């Protein structure tokens, strides 16, 4: 089962991971990554914008690619958009598979692609001033790992 969503409100990852896990009887392992808005460095808020016609279809394609590549039973891909404060979940990726390595690798693969190859634009609020976050070389390097 592929469950791919853009969420506009704060969410509790466990509320999605539980039902996702239960939907795959017979699985051998589930791997989950939850990313939260980092605190520190004076960040007061983070805002993610997206482009509806491209962002969600791109996430669906990513989930399908990961599921095929790693032979998954299912993948859960959740991403927040809108304004968030430090400590709020921003992304949740969960993979269900018969064996652990497929699940772990699929989550790593999906996160690298979400970080560098998905239609999201981020800006952060520091000291009352919004500034856009530019692409990092590291994100590109992370993507190269997967060939």
């Amino acid at each position: 089962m592929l469950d791919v969503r853009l969420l506009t409100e704060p969410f509790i990852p466990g509320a999605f991971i539980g039902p996702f896990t239960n939907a795959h009887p017979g699985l051998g392992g589930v791997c989950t990554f939850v990313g939260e808005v980092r605190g520190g460095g004076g960040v007061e808020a983070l805002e993610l914008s997206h482009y509806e016609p491209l962002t969600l279809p791109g996430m669906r394609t990513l989930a399908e690619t990961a599921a095929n590549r790693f032979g998954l039973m299912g993948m859960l891909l959740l991403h927040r958009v809108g304004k968030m404060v430090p400590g709020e979940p921003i992304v949740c990726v969960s993979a269900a598979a018969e064996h652990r390595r497929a699940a772990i690798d699929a989550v790593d693969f999906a996160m690298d692609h979400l970080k560098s190859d998905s239609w999201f634009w981020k800006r952060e609020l520091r000291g009352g001033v919004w500034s856009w976050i530019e692409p990092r070389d590291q994100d590109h390097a992370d993507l190269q790992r997967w060939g």
Partner: protein
Amino acid sequence: MAKLVFLGRLADLAGVPERVVEPGPLESILAGLPVELAVALLDEKVRIARNGELLINPGGITVAAGDEIAFLPPVSGG
């Protein structure tokens, strides 16, 4: 009429997230925008999508009535 959509920092530069324009050659539409914005939209790193489809070679397109043209700067990731 047609619609231009500005994403990320391009929305700040445009001062609005969207702008309604007369249909016509994209080149002419851009020529009618403030110079600083037009230059930013034409940056080679900015991708252009028409009605949700990325254009490989957007250079010579003509924008039809009802089209939505989106300008997508490099992503900052999820």
